[in-house]
Structure formats: C-alpha cells, structure tokens
C-alpha cells in the first residue's frame, strides 16, 4: 500500500508542474507591463524596479517561469499589494475556512447522496423513489448562490433560526456550537447540487449491481434483504461511486466561491474574487495554484481509497 501511495504521488508531479505552467501562461496574457499590473496603485518607479528584480520580470519567459516556480517551492508566493502581507500567509489562513466549509459539504453530499441513492434504488418506482428523484431534480437545477440567498431569507430572516452570514460572530465566543450554527446554511447550500448528482449516480450504480449474479448468490444463501442491499450491493456499487465523489469534490470546491460570497464566508474563494476585483495578481496566481494542487492531492487520496476497496486494482 505504501508503495502504491508513493507511486501515485510521483505520478502527480507532472500534473502539478502542468498546473503551474498553465497558470503562468494565463497570467502572461495580462496586457501591459507586468510589474505595473502587479503593483497596481503602488507602482512608483522604485517599486517597479524592485518587483522586476525579485520576479525576474525583465528576463525571458522561460527564466521567469523557473524563478517563479523556485520561489513557490521555497514557500515564497510573493506579496499581496492590496493586503500588504505575504500571499502564502493569507492563503493558509483563508484556506482553513474553505476547508471547513467545503469539507463539511463534501461529507454531507457523500453521505446524503449515497443514502438517498440506495433508498431510491431499493424502492425503485415506489413513493420514496419518486420523492427522492423529484427532490434531486430540483436540487441539481437550483443555482447554489440562489439557493443560498433563499435559505438566508427563510431561515435567518423569517424564522430567525440561524445567523445570516459570516463564520464567527463579531462579538462573543468562538465555540464549536457557534461555528456549527454559522456553517449549517452555507454547507447545505453548497452540498445541494453535488448531493443530487451523487444520489442519481448511486441509484443507477445500485440498480446495475442489484442485477448481478453475486447478489442472487447472496439471496440464495439466505442473506437478509437489508444486508444484501446495504452490504453486498452497496459495497460493489461504491466501486463506481467513489470516482464520482472525487469529481464532485472539485465541484464542491468550485461552488464554494459562490457560497463564500453569498454567506460572506472568509475563505479562499471570496479572497480570489476580491483579489480579481482589486487586480491583485500575485494573490490570484498563488491562490489558484495552491487550491489546484490541493485538489490534485485529494484525488490521489480518492484513488487510494478505491484501491483499498477493490482488491482487483493492482497496487
């Protein structure tokens, strides 16, 4: 197993490099003088000179890329001019919040989605199946940012059950309970679409598996139906559900950008949008590379989980 993980990690290196190249090329599309773009309002001649030197901006493209890559590998993502602090510090702080939000949503979408799919499949064409299918259809069609706004209206404004937005209250203790209160709405709004997708897929994966011969064998052995469904069938269906969970993680991470804006969640997504509006190029660049790299690593974890489940995968 250890060697398998190592192998997957090594194979991720070219992908990670590719990501940096793509981001670098996109940023090279910025019109005008890069140092002025990076510095924005702070672009005095001395500052431009300093940035040109530290980022090697007068060098040819290829050198510039390697200087940038080298800086990043040593943990130097540059300095955000709009926040006047190191980009990496800001990202790490913000990423924490995003991780809490997206992580919760991911767990929600996996658990609820699989459960809904399994129940739906085991009562195919029954009332529960139809109700779930209908809910799923609505869920995957509502844009998450609109759903979030409607949730605020209902639960925060009308019913006053939950706080309107933010991660922590301005005054008061930072307890787990307070966090959960603030997290509930954004996490649910963010999970909605992914839950729908996972539910759909789990349903069809279960239906596929339930027709297999080994399910008939389990029944012929006298395995109780509950165990046939939640044991034998679900385990086999997980083989096709897990890769989809990996893909959905990417969608949850993407959706977090909208949800962080709607709920003023202090995460990376909101940071990126603000950075774009402020034209804080280094912050955008660093944030994109950092999150994309985390996503690549997460997908390795998904592969490892898959290989633990399915002994037929060569490790």
């Amino acid at each position, binding site marked *: 197993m250890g060697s398998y993980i190592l192998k997957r990690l090594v194979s991720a290196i070219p992908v990670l490099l590719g990501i940096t190249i793509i981001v670098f090329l996109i940023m090279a599309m*910025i019109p005008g003088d890069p140092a002025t773009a990076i510095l924005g309002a702070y672009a005095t001649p001395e500052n431009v000179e300093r940035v040109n030197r530290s980022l090697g901006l007068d060098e040819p493209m290829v050198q510039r890329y390697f200087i940038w890559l080298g800086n990043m590998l040593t943990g130097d993502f540059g300095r955000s001019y709009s926040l006047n602090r190191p980009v990496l510090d800001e990202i790490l702080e913000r990423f924490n919040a995003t991780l809490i939000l997206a992580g919760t949503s991911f767990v929600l979408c996996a658990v609820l989605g699989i459960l809904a799919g399994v129940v739906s499949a085991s009562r195919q064409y029954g009332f529960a199946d139809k109700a779930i299918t209908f809910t799923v259809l609505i869920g995957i069609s509502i*844009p998450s940012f609109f759903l979030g706004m409607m949730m605020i*209206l209902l639960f925060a404004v009308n019913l006053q059950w939950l706080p309107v937005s933010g991660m922590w209250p301005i005054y008061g203790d930072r307890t787990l309970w307070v966090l959960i209160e603030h997290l509930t709405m954004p996490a649910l709004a963010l999970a909605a679409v992914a839950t729908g997708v996972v539910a759909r897929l789990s349903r069809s994966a279960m239906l596929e598996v339930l027709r297999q011969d080994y399910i*008939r064998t389990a029944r012929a052995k006298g395995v109780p*139906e509950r165990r046939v469904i939640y044991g034998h069938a679900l385990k086999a269906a997980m083989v096709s559900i897990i890769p989809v969970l990996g893909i959905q993680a990417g*969608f949850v991470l993407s959706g977090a950008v909208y949800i962080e804006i709607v709920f003023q969640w202090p995460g990376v997504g909101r940071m990126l949008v603000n950075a774009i509006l402020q034209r804080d190029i280094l912050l955008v660049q660093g944030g994109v590379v950092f999150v994309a790299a985390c996503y690549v690593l997460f997908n390795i974890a998904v592969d490892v989980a898959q290989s633990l489940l399915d002994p037929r995968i060569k490790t």
Partner: protein
Amino acid sequence: MRQFLKLLFRNRLAGLGAIVLGAIVLLVLVTPLLPLPDPNATATGDRFLRPFSAGHLLGTDHLGRDLLARLLYGTRLSLAVGLAAALIAATIGSAIGILAGYFGGRLDNVVMRGVDMLMAFPYILLALAIVAALGPGLLNALIAVAAVNIPFFARNIRGVTVGLAGREFVDAAKLAGMGSGRIVMVEILPNVLPTIVIAMSTTVGWMILETAGLSFLGLGSQPPQADLGSMLGEARAALISAPHTSVVPGVMIFLIVMSVNLLGDGIRDALDPRLKSGALSRPRATTAVDRKGPVPETPQQGLLDLQELQTQFHVGERIYRAVGGVSLHVKPGECLGIIGESGSGKSVTALSVMGLVASPPGVVTGGAVKYDGEDLLSADYKSLRRKRGENVAYIFQDPLATLHPLYRVGDQLAEAIRVHHRVSDAEAKRRGLELLRSVRIPNPESRMRNYPHEMSGGMRQRVGIAMALANDPDVIIADEPTTALDVTVQAQILSMLDDLRRERGLAIVFITHDFGVVAQLCDRVAVMYAGRIVEEGMTREVLEHPLHPYTSRLIACVPELGGGRRKLEAIPGLPPPVDKLPPGCAFAPRCPKAQPECQKGEIALFTKEERAVRCLYPEETFLEEEMADARLAGE
C-alpha cells in the same frame, strides 16, 4: 428520428422541459417587439416597487427600473452568452480533438497531456484565473467559460475521431489522393457532427449557469448592462428589504437550468435501449407470485415437489412463458437431472423454487413448489429466507460472476453460516475452513484469505460448492455447475458431488445440457423443451430407450458417454421463442417425424409409473392405446 422523438415525448417530464424551454426561448425572441419600458430607464422615485404594481408587472429594482423588462432582456443576454460560449467551446474543442485524433502520434500525445492538465483544475479556478488576467467583463467571462469547456469537447471528439481515422473510407480517400484537409472536412467532420451536437446540448445549460455565476460574482456583465447573474448579484444587497428583486432572476435561472436538465435526461433515456427492455429494473428480494388458479393439492411425492409450476416473464406487452406447467419431484438422497438446450426453461424452473427468478420481469403465475409438504410460493419472505441455503442451497454456473468480487472467500463462507446460525465469527471461520477441506481445496488456510479473482475456475467452483454445503442443506440445486470448467476439472467436481451426496444423503437437482453428465450422476432425468417436460424416466432407461424424438437427438449428440462437454447445436433449428409458442408440439418444426395432428392441440404428458413422454409418435411403443386415442382426437 421519429421514433426518437416519440420516445422523448413519452417521457412526460422531458416533454415538460421542452415546453418550458421553448416558451422561454420564444419569449426572449419576441422581447424587442413587446411593449416594454426601457430596461435601463431609472426612476429613483419608484424604487423597489412590489410585483403587480401599476405599470410594473414584476415591480422595480433598486434604481426603479422595470423588472419584467430587465428580466426578459437579461434572459436574452444570458442565453445568448451561454450559447455563444457553447459554440466557441464546441468549435475550438472539436477542432483540437479532430486534429489530435486524425493525425495521432506526437501531436495527439502533447494535446491530450494538456487536456488532462486542464481537467485537473476545479473548473472555476481556471475561469477565475482567465478573468483575472483579462479583467472583469461579460466578453471575458464568456471567453473564460468557453475556455474551461474546451478540454471536454477535445477529449470526446478525439475519441470518436480516432475510431473513424482507422476506417476503410478514410483509407480509400487517402488512396484516392485526397489531401488531409479535405479528408477532415469531407469524411471526418460529417461523422463527428452528431457527437458534437450531443455534447453541446448536454453542456449548454451548464455554460449558461456558469456565465451567470461569473456575472453574479461581479466578474461578468458590468452595469448598466445586465444578464440574469448580475441582476441577482445586484439584488443581493437588498435581499432582505426587497426579496422580489432576487427571486425574479433566480427563478428564471432555475427554470432554464431545470428544463435543460429534463430535456437532457429525456434525450439520454430515449437513446438508451436498456430502459425500453426493462433491464434496468431492480430484482426484488423474492420472485413475484401471482397465481391465477388454485394451489394444486396433490399428495406429497418427494422432499421437494414442483406441481404444475408456471413462471413467466412480463416485458412490456409481451409474455414469455419460460416455464409452462412443470411437475417434478426429488426424494432424499436422490439425484434428478434436468436437461435441455439453453432457453428450455430449466434454469428458470430451478430458480423458481426459492423465489430467485429476477422480478420484474419474472412472475410465477401458477402451480406450487412444496418443500416437505409446505408450499414455498405462499410463504412470506421471512420464512423463505430462512430456508434459503439452510434447507435448499444453490450452486451456480460461473463462480467468477456468482461470488462477490470484493469479499474474501472465507468471509463469504462464514457469512453463509452466520445468517442462519448464531455463532461467533471465529467459529464460523473454523467451519468454513472445514468446508474448504471437505471440497478438497489445498492450503485451505491461505485460501480463506483469497478474493475470488485470485483463484482458478475449478477452485472457485469448489468454493461455490462449499458455500452450498455450509448449512448441511437437504436439497442442492446445481445450475450447470461444471459448464464453465474444462473437462478434467469437470470430472473431479462431478465425482466430488457424487461422493457428497452419498455421504450426506443430499438430494440433488442437477441442471445441464449434457447427457454425458446426466449419465454419470443422475438417478432420474427430466428432459425439458420450450418450458415443458417432454420426457421423464430413470436415467438408464431414458438413455437406452429414449421415447421422445428430441431426447434421442440429444443423446445422439454425445458420442461417448461421460466424454465431457458437448454442444447441442448438432440438432438443426432453434427452439421456438417462448412468447410465440405454436399450438401442439413445440418441437414439431424440428421433428423429422412430425405429422399434421402433432400441431393441432395440446399434447398430454403420457405417464406410466416412472416413465413419461409428451409425443404422439414416440420412438418406441408406449401406452399404445392412449396414444392411438390422442392421435385420433387430433385428426
């Protein structure tokens, strides 16, 4: 195409999606012709008017602009931008895909690597990076959304093109001296076009949503111009005081995305042939029983009695009579063979016993299955489940498909015991080990930890047998257990089954298409054809004096008894489809002795003690008087 549309509209939801989407598109197309106020005309005195105010059907926004006009123009813009992004992504992506797929080699390699890298991004990061570089604005948002979707098209179209590039008409065009450019345009493009269109229809809704999303973030359309996303984004500031300004554009986005989704699902379902055949339905825990007649009340003949069993498959309007009234019995310690070609109904008969016929589409429509006098068809699920494996166990044909691929063999064995007996896991494992020994598996300790795919076919089938033996059942139903194995392994398994039967006093129902196997193992044999028994008797007698012409053909297919696997294709013709059974003898079309009266009406199973045959002109004289009467009745 007509059929496709019919299928699409038979799906009511897809039809609904098409209607809603059509209405929206129509509305948007005629928008400039409608008597609407200027969507950008501000009137600060009329801020946040509620819906249904005079002159403003949907009310006004924070600058007093008419929401209905803004909604319609915003929808127009959103649809146009989404469509444009889809077209751009489709064009560029397809071009890349075609070039990579057609030329292959290094180019293909480099391009596909790039595509993989792009797909490693969570899509929005890429879009944000592009907008960051180009600056906020609707056109830039459009470019970003299109760019993010290019890899998707490139990968799909490349796959199709690779398939086409190797086809003969492309080679022919090359030989005819056509240039690469012309081949791509004339031969490849028309063939990949359908795929491009399908890929576009599945992504356009997504791209509409994405551009709206970027506008919502303030990175897309800039004021005063507004698409649905920026309308929602601007309204957010007044979410609490004037919620209608948010609800109006939000609901519109929802309607568009939902109708596109419904339509897309409908298209996908209409293109999927499996849905029509009902092959995607889930088999229930037991076979459905819907008996038309009364439960037969015949006296008990064996440990397991089938009486006039009828099992059908209901697929749409069609009814397949897989088992059409089969009576069989097996006594303790006896081995009964059921033999027939595939499609004769022998497996369905076997699976009907414990309610294992997949249902839907299977339904037991008549007769009885009695285990020790108790009718299993009227038993509830609980008591049936308790008998499965405990009293009547199964061995199936292909153990690679019938053992669970993700559980260790030892766990599957232990489970078979533990679902019926309250024993500890360790104890169940110990018994499992014993079972593996009793089916003569070498190194049983290490085999317990194997997964099925790590074993050979013969070993797997031994596991299958061990699992059937786990609870010391009284009856084992073996459904072609040796068909997938080679001859030597087959012989080993058969002799082992025979030993087990003698040691344990097992009753075995052995289903096969091979008379050689029957001769080796079975005391009695029943021959099935088109869902019915056509001959029955002691194995030796049937082999030496077959009565039914079909039986004698089957025996003729086995040159040497016990000589291993034989194919039955030697009999010319095919069994009749069981949804269109001819009147009278089902074998008549293939029978060399067929007479007109054979096809007149139902032919009875002529029975004398252990022997029975369903034929008017048997190979040897049998119950001459009754036969003569029946022949006369048929004329």
